[in-house]
């Protein structure tokens, strides 16, 4: 009994220790619960919400790009994808077979679908076929009741109704690259497109709009359970360009007659770019979809540079089209009067160098008007020598050369107006006066873009520092808008000076003996004035000069001269100006007047007939074009 009692006492003692140990464990558990559920409760409540609430971005609809009358140059087109939700479809193989009888589902599509299904959660829709045609969609739509899990998904792609016609101006959109991430969470959306060139790029932020958000509750595998809140985004703002699409198309078609052309058509008063063509162009659609490397190779290896916007990025020696600037500089500085005359024997000896005139026999004695009309080189050598490079360069800058004009699409190049400082900085040598003479005929180091040439003419005819623009702040053309409302500062040139130069340019085209007389406009009231130019791409050796090996057919295309022409119309009250550069288009002799002048003539004639600077939407002809567009657009577009 005693042993039993001892044993029971030991048992009781040990049981008490055990109970104590368990009480301690219980206390520890309770303490931990207190810590988690009371002390740190708020932190974990936040974490729980972060778990379950997912913020989704709602991409805003990218705004359109329009021409001045509201014709869409870039718009969104709905496209349709066939998607299948695996968990609803059940037997996916049977579903694919059934779809295969309705539309074409290739073997690669099949394999891709099955692979994606294995990788993704079963509630995530998988695209079976993208970009269904209208016909295919109709066939699937009818069969959808018998195909569980199959549905048609709407997407949006960027569409350019005019394709390559305005590709350089409008630009294109493409997937966002790493460097373009600017903190806007929209850019991180997988299918988001960003403007890569043209107006699409320069006005990307306005076109893009702001994202909406949708707060959704998701479960652990990401399935959306319900939407909690929704904040609508703001769609982008349409960009109205200054282009007149009818003129753009006309100019494009006209330029396609030559290999490689840049042509700019401006409203001289407002600076509106009515047409800006760099031919050949490219199709912007593949860029949005993803370009194949073969296409890219072809485009970038083409010597005519279809990807480059030559109208703003092509810098050419302006040649004789620069002479109006030299004339203005000479008249303004007083080294020349309209009565001053020089004699041209066909060359000018300066030091021990001989500078040639384009005309072998020379022009004889002539004054400024005839010098412009006949484009006498010797006259302008002498004039430039008298003006000096400093005053010449200053005048050139006043006319918009040698710097960016600030056109509102990316890629503009400044060209070059040489000066003493420039020579020292780049060549490290002193400016020689011979270079002034060469600059006097727009050769040597002088480089100008077609846009600068057009701007020069716009400034000549208005006397104001007109700057070109591609996007209209005022929006669409309206009757009430004062079309001359842009107050460009005056160039501070005498009206007489401008008048003399313009008179010379009138003579170039409209008087017998003028270099572009053959390209004159004969319709009454539409006559244009202009100035031709032929710029050398390479040095002409004495040997070639003696042997006369200067015929275009005898030298490779890349080495042929550029043909240029700048023009304004109508001569009486200039409103439209046009500059055309035909790359390597100049044959000897005729120069710019033979190849480039006819393009300017046709463009200026057409633009005067149409008169887009004074039209408003709804005017006859524009409505017709709209109707044409709508009919050619596919369903749903």
């Amino acid at each position: 009994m005693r042993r039993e009692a001892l044993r029971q006492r030991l048992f009781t003692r040990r049981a008490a220790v055990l109970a104590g140990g368990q009480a301690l464990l219980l206390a520890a558990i309770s303490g931990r619960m207190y810590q988690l559920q009371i002390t740190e409760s708020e932190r974990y409540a936040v974490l729980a919400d972060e778990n379950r609430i997912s913020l989704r971005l709602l991409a805003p609809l990218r705004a359109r790009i329009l021409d001045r009358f509201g014709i869409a140059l870039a718009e969104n087109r709905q496209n349709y994808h066939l998607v299948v939700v695996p968990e609803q479809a059940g037997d996916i193989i049977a579903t694919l077979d059934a779809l295969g009888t309705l539309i074409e589902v290739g073997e690669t599509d099949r394999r891709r679908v099955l692979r994606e299904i294995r990788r993704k959660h079963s509630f995530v829709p998988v695209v079976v076929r993208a970009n269904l045609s209208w016909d295919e969609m109709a066939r699937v739509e009818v069969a959808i009741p018998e195909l569980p899990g199959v549905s048609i998904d709407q997407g949006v792609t960027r569409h350019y109704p005019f394709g390559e016609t305005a590709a350089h101006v409008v630009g294109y959109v493409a997937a966002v690259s790493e460097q373009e991430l600017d903190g806007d969470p929209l850019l991180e959306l997988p299918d988001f497109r960003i403007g890569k060139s043209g107006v699409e790029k320069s006005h990307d932020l306005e076109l893009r709009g702001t994202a909406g958000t949708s707060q959704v509750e998701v479960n652990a595998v990401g399935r959306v359970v319900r939407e909690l809140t929704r904040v609508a985004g703001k769609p982008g703002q349409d960009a109205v360009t200054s282009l007149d699409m009818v003129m753009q198309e006309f100019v494009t078609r006209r330029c396609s007659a030559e290999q490689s052309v840049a042509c700019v058509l401006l409203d001289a008063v407002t600076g509106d770019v009515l047409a800006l063509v760099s031919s050949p162009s490219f199709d912007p659609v593949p860029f949005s979809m993803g370009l194949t490397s073969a296409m890219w190779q072809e485009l970038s290896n083409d010597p005519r540079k279809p990807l480059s916007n030559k109208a703003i990025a092509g810098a050419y020696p302006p040649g004789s089209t620069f002479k109006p600037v030299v004339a203005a500089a000479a008249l303004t500085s007083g080294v020349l009067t309209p009565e001053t005359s020089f004699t041209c024997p066909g060359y000018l000896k300066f030091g021990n160098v001989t500078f040639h005139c384009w005309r072998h026999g020379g022009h004889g004695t002539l004054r400024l008007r005839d010098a412009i009309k006949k484009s006498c080189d010797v006259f302008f050598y002498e004039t430039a020598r008298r003006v000096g490079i400093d005053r010449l360069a200053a005048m050139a800058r006043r006319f918009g050369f040698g710097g960016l004009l600030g056109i509102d699409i990316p890629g503009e190049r400044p060209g070059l107006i040489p000066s003493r400082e420039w020579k020292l900085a780049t060549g490290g040598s002193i400016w020689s006066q011979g270079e002034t003479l060469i600059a006097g005929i727009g050769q040597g180091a002088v480089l100008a873009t077609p846009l600068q040439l057009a701007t020069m003419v716009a400034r000549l005819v208005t006397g104001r520092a007109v700057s070109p623009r591609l996007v209209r702040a005022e929006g669409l053309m309206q009757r009430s808008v004062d079309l001359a409302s842009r107050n460009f500062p005056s160039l501070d040139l005498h009206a007489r000076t401008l008048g003399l130069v313009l008179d010379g340019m009138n003579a170039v085209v409209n008087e017998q003996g003028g270099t572009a007389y053959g390209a004159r406009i004969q319709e009454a009231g539409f006559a244009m004035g202009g100035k031709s130019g032929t710029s050398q791409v390479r040095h002409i050796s004495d040997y070639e000069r003696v042997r006369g090996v200067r015929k275009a057919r005898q030298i490779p295309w890349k080495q042929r001269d550029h043909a240029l022409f700048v023009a304004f119309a109508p001569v009486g009250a200039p409103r439209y100006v046009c500059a055309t550069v035909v790359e390597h288009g100049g044959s000897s002799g005729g120069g710019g007047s033979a190849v480039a002048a006819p393009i300017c003539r046709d463009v200026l004639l057409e633009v005067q007939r149409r008169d887009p600077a004074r039209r408003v939407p709804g005017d006859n002809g524009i409505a017709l074009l709209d109707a044409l567009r709508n009919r050619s657009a596919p369903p749903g577009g």
Partner: protein
Amino acid sequence: MPRLTSGLGHELGFLAKLRGISWGLVLLVSLAAACGIAVLYSAADGEMQPWAATQTVRFGIALIPMIGAALLGIRHWFRAAYWAYAIALGLVVAVDLRGFVGMGARRWIDLGLIQLQPSSLMNIVLVLALARYFHTRSDEEIAHMRSLMPPALMVLIPAALVLKQPDLGTAIVLLTTGAALFFIAGVRLRFFALIALAVGAAVPAGWHLLRDYQKSRIYTFLDPESDPLGAGYHILQSKIALGSGGFFGRGFLNGSQSHLSFLPEKQTDFIFTTLAEEFGFIGGIGLLALYSLMIGYGFVIALRCRNHFGRLLGLGIVTNFSFYVFINTAMVMGLIPVVGVPLPLISYGGTAMLAVMFGFGLLLNVGVHREVRLDQYGAIPSVG
């Protein structure tokens, strides 16, 4: 040789036994099971299927072995103890063999109706066998290391087999339960010191026996934030669920962590988290209080028992039960590594429910037979 005689020398009548059952404890067990069914109902988004209904049926069925175990004469249990142990051990071996053939973790035998998981039954019969062993050994014998070898093997063999399955959680419960029985049986403290030394030496060796996922669980436990999407995910989500429950909880059927499936194993090992997310600190502490009442009840039954076998059996069962509770709750709160043991009476699972109820049956049996005296051989000594 002590004389183990007592006043009650004869078998109790059926009605007397029925009266002797601690119905209060049965009520507490039923209450806990009801809580479990409610949480399972919520875990299935307010549906009886697939868990709550099955669990209800299982509880109803398991009541029969519980009351049966309570009513059977205690000397029969004494006599059956080693046999039951042998059968359970055989089943564990069978599962191990099958598991070996079938690759990976196989912890159960498919009996058609239920999938029997022998390791959870092993807990109860181990207590039964150890209670019998220590009942038959005198204090002097227990003081000798030689007589401690058989019970030590009785603990270590199933623990090693279960660890190989691999089921670290159950192995730990087996070992701690065994140790607790050694302790209350009066084994000298120096024995435990020796064990502690041996374990200390064996830990580096044992580390190699652990599977990679078990190792990663231990790493994750040591630094759960290091891998929030991988191995640390479960424990992090569990803590978020508990913490976001706060004081009053998020309300029945409103736990976002469990309903949106962020919580792993919300109906089995992590069911305490599901409960504490929806019912908060109040609910969690309430359940712990319920468990404490049951454990306390068990202590009282064991301490009032007049035979050593019953005392050891009762306390062993209660301790085993409490270890399940503590390991499970500590695990879901991130206090110890995730070892994968169910929360008794609450977690969804057939064998666990059956084993726990059977254990409570034995505890009730101890209560019913508290006045019965057993001699060294388990026989009821004749009066006089």
